[in-house]
């Protein structure tokens, strides 16, 4: 799943814009609600004042002019109405609830002579009319709209109270004003949003410019331009970050230099070690060769006849020289394995048969001496494996050495080699079976560990340092093969070595198919080359 990339600038801009929009909307709301309230109260106050002021004047006008001066009355009422924009209806009602005059719009109706006076039915209103105090209340008109009704009693000099003025005022004007201010707010809000977008993007850009500079610096380091540094002068966390980054880059450069030096030293050490190994192996092997050569000559009577006793002694010497040679070679191999992690360099096509036959030749005198029978069964066709011949030889040398070592006199060592698939890969399986003491099941899993021996006392009895099998495993695994063992105590052990055919690529799969060679071998197993 890929996540959409969001620019830091966009994110900051969104945050700023969100804050600004919220505050703008809130202030608009507050403005509208409070203003609405205040404007209505203001209208109501002026309505009350107006009604109280004109009540007596209007009553007097009705009294003086009456129906005879209807024209003049209309004029006077119109003048009074002009004093207040919000007035919708003015009525003069007597204390019993009989309407005397009703002025609505331009229409002024004077009740009495000929026109039946309507009566006020609303008890609430009647109580207000008969009261002595001016009262006001919000009412709902017949058409459903809100209105403000003021009742102003006309109380004469001697407490005489006959009429009250009932004025009904509309909120229409006020609401119109509010609506227009609401539209204005919306307009301001819209302009504000546009401005906010511009301002927030600009502001965010100012913040992220430094981040971009820093990012570019990181990319340069990533590309390997380690000498480049970042310069930011924002006097904030980003500058601190840039400083820290520069410091880190400095340390990186210093560390790399140290590592290079350390690596050079290690390379020198490694070379020294390699030279040492070569020298040690030379120093150990030369005397061993002399020993081995002379012992063999003596045993075969090449240096004149010697007594039976002496021959037996020479055989013991030979056997031990053989073991010593194996141990020395083992150590050399192990040090080499530790040194080279990659074994690919020394790979070539090898013929397993020749290698196995060569090893068996090496072991023959020792097995004859120990009275161990030996059986070799190799599938007639030869296989060409891609491997390091010297190391593969070492694998079978060590396994055969073990087999012979742990097989008692008169026992049998069996070597079987055949084509076999392992985990869906084609390869060769070699079985080395002995009729020795066997290995307990609990120990079987650990025998391939370095310096491990089944029984510590066996070191004295059978020799060896417990390196042999760990070396076997290292080599086989380096060839992407497998090694395992089966054993039954008292009956014997079988070691299995499986090696794959073909080219061992990095992925362990065969490239270009298995390189199986089918023709008979010529039996030549020495490294002879024509010059």
């Amino acid at each position, binding site marked *: 799943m890929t996540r959409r990339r969001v620019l830091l600038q966009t994110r900051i801009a969104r945050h700023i814009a969100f804050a600004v929009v919220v505050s703008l909307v809130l202030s608009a709301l507050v403005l509208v609600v409070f203003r609405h309230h205040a404007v209505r109260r203001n209208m109501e106050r002026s309505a009350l004042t107006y009604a109280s002021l004109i009540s007596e004047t209007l009553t007097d006008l009705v009294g003086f002019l009456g129906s005879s001066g209807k024209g003049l009355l209309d004029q006077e009422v119109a003048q009074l109405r002009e004093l207040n924009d919000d007035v919708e209806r003015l009525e003069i009602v007597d204390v019993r609830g009989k309407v005397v005059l009703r002025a609505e719009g331009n229409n002024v109706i004077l009740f009495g002579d000929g026109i039946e006076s309507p009566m006020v039915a609303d008890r609430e209103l009647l109580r207000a009319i008969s009261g002595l105090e001016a009262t006001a209340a919000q009412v709902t008109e017949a058409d459903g709209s809100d209105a403000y009704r003021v009742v102003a009693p006309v109380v004469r000099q001697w407490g005489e109270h006959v009429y009250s003025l009932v004025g009904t005022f509309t909120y229409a004007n006020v609401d119109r004003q509010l609506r227009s201010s609401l539209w204005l707010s919306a307009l301001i809000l819209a302009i504000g949003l546009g401005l906010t977008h511009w301002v927030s993007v600009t502001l965010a850009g100012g913040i992220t410019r430094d981040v971009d500079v820093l990012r570019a610096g990181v990319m340069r380091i990533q590309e390997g331009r380690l000498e480049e540094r970042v310069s930011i002068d924002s006097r904030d966390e980003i500058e601190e970050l840039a400083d820290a980054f520069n410091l880190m880059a400095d340390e990186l450069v210093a560390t790399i230099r140290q590592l290079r030096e350390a690596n050079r030293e290690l390379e020198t050490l490694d070379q020294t070690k390699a030279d040492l190994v070569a020298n040690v*192996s*030379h120093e150990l092997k030369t005397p*061993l060769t002399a*020993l081995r050569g*002379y012992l063999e*000559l003596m045993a075969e009577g090449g240096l004149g006849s010697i007594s039976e006793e002496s021959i037996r002694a020479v055989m013991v010497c030979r056997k031990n020289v053989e073991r010593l040679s194996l141990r020395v070679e083992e150590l050399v191999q192990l040090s*080499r394995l530790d040194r080279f992690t990659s074994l690919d360099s020394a790979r070539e096509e090898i013929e397993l048969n020749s290698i196995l036959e060569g090893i068996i030749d090496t072991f023959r005198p020792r097995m004859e001496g120990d009275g161990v029978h030996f059986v070799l069964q190799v599938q007639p066709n030869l296989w060409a494996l891609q491997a390091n011949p*010297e190391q593969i030889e070492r694998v079978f040398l060590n396994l055969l050495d073990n087999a012979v070592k742990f097989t008692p006199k008169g026992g049998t060592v069996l070597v079987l080699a055949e084509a076999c698939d392992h985990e869906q890969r084609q390869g060769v399986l070699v079985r080395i079976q002995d009729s020795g003491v066997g290995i307990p099941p609990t120990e079987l899993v650990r025998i391939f560990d370095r310096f491990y021996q089944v029984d510590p006392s066996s070191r004295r009895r059978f020799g060896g340092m417990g390196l042999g099998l760990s070396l076997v495993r290292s080599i086989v695994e380096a060839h992407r093969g497998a090694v395992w063992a089966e054993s039954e105590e008292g009956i014997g052990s079988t070691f299995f070595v499986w090696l794959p055919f073909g080219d061992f690529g990095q992925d362990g799969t065969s490239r270009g198919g298995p390189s199986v060679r089918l023709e008979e071998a010529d039996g030549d197993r020495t*490294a002879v080359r024509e*010059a």
Partner: protein
Amino acid sequence: MARVFVVDDEPDMVDLLATILKSDGFEVDTDTDGRSALARLLADPPDLVLLDLMMPDLDGMELLKLLRLDAKGANVPVLVVSARSGHQDQLGTLQLGANAYICKPFSPRELVRQVRQLLETSEAETNA
């Protein structure tokens, strides 16, 4: 009677090699110093050279290189005897012009077998 020249700085080794080869009927010349050996080899090329690699002053590799540069030594079969069992070492020696390689410690039988084989090959080439 084939004549084998043994070059090794170790007197015991020279002695052993000479004993083995003589008991098998070869005529043997020996030298424990690289420089004098090279001079003698070029003066009178033998049928085969047994050459140790690790020697002080002039080592086996150098000796081999100088021997192959000279017309007289260019075709003498050389069997390298060395303690270095590394495959790369073997290949390197063969590339320098050695004909075969035998690792220490070896058995006398194996040595004689290789010597005979090399002599046969070289003889066949000369006759051809």
